[in-house]
């Protein structure tokens, strides 16, 4: 039997301002009928470019090297006219995107968008297409599909939208589906359910799929074979169960080593039960009560937690569970009800936070791109907290040294740094204040696994040197199980579980926590 998708010797360049940059180098891979091939690479490895090349939707500055082959069944995709491609896309191959909130047109009802594909590619009448669309939505386990058809994308949740996109992709029984990080933008539990759905649909339809992701642990669970892409080259291709147990290439070994494994603890010391900061009954509201309607529920409701000196306290929960609101309240970015006590001194409200409190409690944000002012040099960025909290500007090189950046970086602007380097500067800025507590708000989420591992290692080293406590907010349960002394689990603005490692080991955990753990893919083998 001939393969569904065949890519042979395919190279691709992007031309920018006269210079060209190679993004794919002699890529060769093939997908057999009914097979799922996982494609794993870090950001910038060219995995999404390959997806677009297969879908024949490349940006205007892309230049394909002659000689490469892209073949869907017997069709040569590179030779196909745009007219022919119109009938191939959606009918014979389709795509599921990373972010379901932008993959659907916000001005069309969900029903129109699903049935349009059926009218277009299966030649059904409007009425029959509508009926078939309801069936398709039913098939992806959506509740009340008929009602959902009349709704607009903003009236559906992220998980529902992704199911709609998947239903559309499967609706015409294509030969190949390209998945581009379909669960990355979703919560752990929602993502896990999407994966379950994918597994079921795959078993039913035996469709072939290219599954692109940066998450090796996840791909190893869904794919039959895994191809590892490094800087546009495929460095290794192996059966999924072999990739973790016997990685052959050096780069793969490096990736496998960087995947957080909960059983491998990075923090071994114990902290004394001495309170550093205590937050009592914290409730954060973002909106004032509307005049004629009932008040909206607060983002966090009566949350009480305490952080000990030098402790790493993890906060986990899905998006919207209020974990970032806690960070905003503790740093005075949001007004809150309740009380915060720092070393016995009580802080009544965000306005009452004095310089001593602000020095002691620092925050590192999720997105390094937006947390550094693009118009300031690294030296400017670091000098500000030093001046404000009585440090010495001459210590900037030492500060950079501490976060393992060369002192020459002081003169650079943020856009000249990589994501991981920017995050190191943000960490240096927090440590410039010599804080007692650093709040890390999802700081590893936008980084590649290998960079993530080095940032975590840096944080642990800084803690060892300075005795700083961390409030480690994340949705990555595997990571937090590696580093935290205690874990706080939040759901819908409330704390549902507080557990230390001993309780976790003994299994004395809340059912919701159990669900979260089950949904976090752990490395096999």
């Amino acid at each position: 039997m001939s393969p569904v998708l065949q890519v042979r010797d395919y190279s691709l360049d992007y031309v920018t301002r006269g210079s060209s940059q190679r993004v794919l180098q002699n890529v060769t891979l093939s997908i057999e009928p009914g097979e799922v091939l996982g494609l794993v690479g870090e950001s910038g490895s060219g995995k999404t470019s390959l997806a677009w090349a297969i879908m024949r939707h490349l940006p205007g500055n892309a230049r394909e090297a002659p000689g490469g082959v892209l073949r869907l069944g017997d069709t040569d995709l590179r030779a196909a006219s745009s007219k022919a491609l119109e009938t191939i896309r959606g009918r014979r191959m389709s795509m599921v995107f990373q972010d379901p909130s932008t993959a659907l047109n916000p001005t069309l009802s969900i029903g129109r968008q699903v049935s349009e594909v059926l009218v277009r590619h299966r030649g059904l009448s409007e009425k029959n297409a509508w009926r078939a669309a309801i069936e398709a939505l039913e098939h992806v386990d959506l509740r009340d599909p008929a009602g959902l058809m009349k709704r607009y994308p903003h009236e559906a949740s992220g998980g529902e939208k992704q199911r709609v996109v998947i239903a559309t992709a499967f609706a015409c029984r294509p030969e190949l589906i390209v998945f581009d990080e379909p669960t990355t933008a979703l919560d752990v539990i929602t993502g896990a359910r999407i994966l379950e759905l994918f597994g079921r649909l795959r078993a039913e339809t035996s469709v072939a799929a290219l599954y692109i992701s940066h998450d090796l642990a996840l791909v190893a669970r869904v794919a039959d074979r895994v191809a590892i892409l490094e800087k546009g080259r495929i460095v290794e291709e192996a059966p999924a169960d072999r990739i973790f147990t016997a990685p052959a290439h050096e780069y793969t070994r490096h990736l496998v080593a960087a995947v957080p494994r909960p059983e491998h603890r990075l923090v071994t010391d114990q902290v004394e039960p001495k309170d550093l900061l205590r937050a009592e009954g914290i409730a954060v509201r973002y909106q004032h009560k509307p005049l004629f309607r009932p008040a909206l529920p607060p983002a966090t409701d009566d949350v009480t937690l305490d952080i000990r000196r030098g402790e790493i306290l993890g906060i986990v929960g899905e998006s919207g569970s209020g974990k970032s609101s806690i960070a905003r309240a503790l740093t005075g970015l949001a007004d809150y009800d309740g009380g915060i006590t720092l070393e016995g001194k009580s802080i009544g409200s965000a306005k009452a936070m004095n310089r001593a409190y602000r020095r002691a409690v620092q925050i590192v944000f999720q997105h390094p791109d937006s947390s550094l002012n693009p118009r300031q040099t690294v030296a400017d960025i670091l000098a500000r907290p030093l001046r404000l909290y009585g440090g010495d500007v001459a210590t900037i090189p030492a500060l950079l040294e501490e976060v393992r950046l060369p002192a020459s970086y002081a003169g650079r602007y943020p856009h000249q740094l990589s994501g991981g380097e920017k995050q190191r500067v943000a960490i240096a800025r927090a440590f410039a204040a010599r804080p007692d507590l650093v709040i890390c708000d999802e700081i590893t989420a936008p980084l590649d696994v290998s960079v993530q591992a080095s940032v975590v290692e840096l944080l642990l080293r800084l803690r060892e040197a300075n005795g700083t406590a961390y409030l480690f907010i994340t949705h990555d349960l595997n990571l937090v199980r590696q580093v935290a002394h205690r874990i706080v689990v939040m759901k819908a603005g409330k704390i549902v579980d507080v557990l230390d490692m001993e309780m976790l080991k003994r299994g004395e955990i809340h059912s919701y926590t159990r669900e979260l753990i089950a949904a976090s893919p752990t490395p096999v083998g």
Partner: protein
Amino acid sequence: MTDALHRLLRTPQGVLGLLLLAVLVLACLLGGTLAPYPPEAMDFAGRFAPPGIKHWFGADQLGRDVLSRLLVGASSTIPLAVAATFSGALVGACVGTLSAYLGRRWDEAITRTIDAVMAIPHLLLALILVSTLGKGSTNAALAIAISVAPSMARVTRSVALSVRQQDYVKAAIARGEGAGWIVLREMLPNVAAPLIIEATIRVAFAVMLFATLSFLGLGAQPPASEWGLMVSEARRFMHQAPWIIVAPAVAIATTAICFNLLGDGLRDALNPRDER
């Protein structure tokens, strides 16, 4: 900055805009020395002389050389218009950024005030201001600055609102910085690019508004050779000697086009994301 200049030179609008700007700057700086005659030298024998070798752009109703008057007038028209726009833009930018930073009730109060001021047409506002402050070039420039400020504040506010959401602003708040530092040092530099573009395009409006005020007799006063005033004075002789009105009108139009092109070019040059 040199990077932005390079990108500006790669767009046709940028090149053309810069060329025209160079001509205008030359006229402003060296107009007096380049002019073949003194701007106020009358020659009754040469009244209404058509364009020719003696008078390139002709002579007006008093026999004054139109080209000389244009060249000398450049320095009393363009610098004032540019200065008026950019001072108005700066004030507007500060108000807009502050409004976005303060948010909630303050934002509401400031924006509604701006709305109220913007409900008055530019020209009417300038007219009211000039008639209150008194005639003259400086007051006209001041009036233009004030009429530019509200719309600039509005544009700035919309850009600043998205900057306000950036984590580096939150970081500054969490650090305990004052409002002045956050507005001037953290936010303003990041709203500058769209502002420069907007302000450059508005210079064209200012030149025309300034000319209009002078035309109406509220800006520069005779015998000054301000361009709008020249148009105004030549209006009576439009059929008899059209060159007297055409020359300053074309000069005003060229200036407006120059700054429009420059604004368009800058829009591409200062947004390096549009690399494709």
